[in-house]
């Protein structure tokens, strides 16, 4: 186990290094500089700007400098917001994104699990079909389409909830629901399969034979074991939530990281693009790592191997 964890951490660091380097060089390949579009600058002004941000040096040197800074936790300064450090920009905007992501994740998995359990307990009834249908819808409808429709029908037409912006809990409800439809559908489908599987096993028959009520059988005996594999979908869900947050934050005008990422892409604010990329990649890798470790801890049947077996 210890060896496995160490090996995984090694891989994580290599992966992260490759991602950062790759994104850095890819970004350098993007045609146009951050200053070419914004204002009409004379050549000498452009030269001064480039010198100020170190853009006049050869790319490998810029790269080494950047990597050195990143190791010290310095992600550079934004081109767009004059001289604001990227770390500061990002930390200002982490709040809404994290709130949104967590709310969507918690609401989505819990609701999805409930749907899946109901479908499994009432297999091949209208409840089962209904929940399967909901799961297909959630998996199929793009989150931003759903977000825009929610915004129009619930907020604009019915006026039940605020249309946009970020000023309190009620502002976070619609975007969280829009983000949650994917976790709901994935959790529901997964849960249904696992639950049906578990309900067919011998210890459930034993519990029934002992005289446990259907409620006890389902929630005390079956649910616990059926929940274990659901942990594995948390990784893909995180990736989906990150993708979703980019557009959902756009739709609801939420000042989160996703919204900032999109803006920085549009104005080619290199340090911010890089900073956000590093943040996303780290988050993604760390969550996948945690999920794998968690899985082996709660399910002793899973044996993690060190790769060279």
């Amino acid at each position: 186990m210890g060896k496995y964890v160490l090996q995984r951490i090694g891989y994580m660091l290599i992966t992260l290094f490759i991602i950062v380097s790759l994104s850095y060089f890819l970004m350098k390949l993007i045609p146009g500089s951050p200053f070419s579009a914004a204002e009409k600058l004379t050549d000498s002004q452009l030269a001064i700007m480039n010198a100020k941000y170190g853009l006049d040096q050869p790319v490998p040197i810029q790269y080494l400098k950047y990597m050195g800074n990143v190791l010290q936790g310095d992600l550079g300064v934004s081109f767009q917001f004059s001289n604001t450090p990227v770390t500061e920009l990002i930390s200002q905007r982490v709040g809404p994104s994290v709130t949104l992501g967590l709310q969507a994740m918690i609401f989505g998995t819990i609701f999805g699990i409930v749907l899946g359990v109901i479908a499994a307990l009432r297999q091949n009834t209208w409840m089962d079909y209904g929940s399967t249908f909901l799961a297909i819808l959630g998996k199929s409808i793009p989150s931003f389409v759903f977000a825009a429709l929610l915004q129009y029908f619930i907020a604009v037409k019915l006026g039940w909830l605020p249309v946009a912006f970020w000023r309190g809990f009620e502002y976070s409800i619609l975007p969280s629901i829009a983000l949650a439809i994917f976790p709901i559908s994935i959790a529901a489908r997964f849960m249904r399969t696992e639950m049906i599987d578990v309900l067919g096993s011998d210890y459930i028959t034993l519990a029934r034979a002992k005289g446990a009520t259907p409620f006890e059988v389902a929630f005390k005996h079956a649910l616990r074991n059926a929940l274990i594999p659901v942990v594995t979908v948390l990784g893909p869900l995180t990736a989906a939530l990150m993708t979703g947050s980019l557009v959902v934050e756009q739709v609801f005008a939420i000042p989160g990281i996703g919204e900032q990422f999109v803006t920085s892409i549009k104005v080619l604010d290199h340090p911010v693009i890089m900073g956000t990329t590093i943040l996303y990649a780290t988050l993604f890798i760390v969550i996948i790592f945690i999920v794998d470790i968690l899985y082996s801890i709660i399910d002793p049947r899973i044996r993690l191997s060190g790769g060279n077996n």
Partner: protein
Amino acid sequence: MANHSGKRFPKEMFEPAHYDESLGEKIEKPSLNFWQDAWLRVKKNKAAIISLVLLTMLIIMAFIGPYLSGYDGDVQRAEHNNLPPRIEAIQHIDWLPFNGTITNREGETLTPYEDRQVEESYWFGTDQFGRDLFTRLWEGVQISLLIAFLATAIDMIFGVSYGAISGYFGGRVDNIMQRIIEILMGIPNLVIVILLILILEPGILSITIALAITGWTTMARVVRGQVLKLKNEEFALASKTLGATNIRIIFKHLMPNMVGVIIINTMFTIPNAIFFEAFLSFIGLGLQPPDASLGTLIESGFKSLLLYPYQLIIPSIVISLLMITFNLIADGLRDAFDPKMRD
């Protein structure tokens, strides 16, 4: 249970049946090949069949749709801008949204066709430049499908080759190739796709390439798993003994056994590609005007959502239908090709 008591069973009923040994080996039903068998099982799945019909209709419309309304999707007519949908045949049915009226934010019903004395009817309305949205919608579906199919095809070819080579040759080759995949899978697709699009400049080709580059890893892993399993089977050994080359064994003998898995994976990749294309367009990295894709239509529809909701709702319905049908067909195929893989 039938009623046993009180019934008399005559002795003749218990005569041994006549048994003809020559019929013992007779095959009662025609033997089915892989495809017939799969089709038999897909047929039982109502959702998949309905989806197949719907999808076929959508694809047909994508090709003939742009010619049906008689308007060119690129012609701008400022005097006909933002007209709501109107279909003459059903415009008097009030609950259908095709009567050429639109409700503004104060709740008043506007009749722009009459107000502006427009004789023509635009089935799905027009956009802010007065372009016919019916034509643009189907052109958009065409382009979205094109991008999705192209990206998926590249995915499939590359993923299958990579997985087959990695699994078949094993050992050090496999080790290195798998480490590469592990690292690639650790990278959030989103980041790479966005950076690639920025470098290549948004367009059909660049979106396709970006989607293909990030999408093949799942396929490669699945195919590798299959090859690892199949390469030790007797038929592969037999072929090897007869002197078949590695390439021949992989493509002639192993591949047909993996067709099901490959098709299932491909069917799940297509909706994914459709989604990513729309996603990129929505954040402003999609096709450049005047080209239309479902994503760009949704994006521009979203901008005028408050005033002209039909401009968002119609493409939203179409993209959702596409995604739902592809997913349902993929589900159906998965159950049909490989009953063990049911989720």
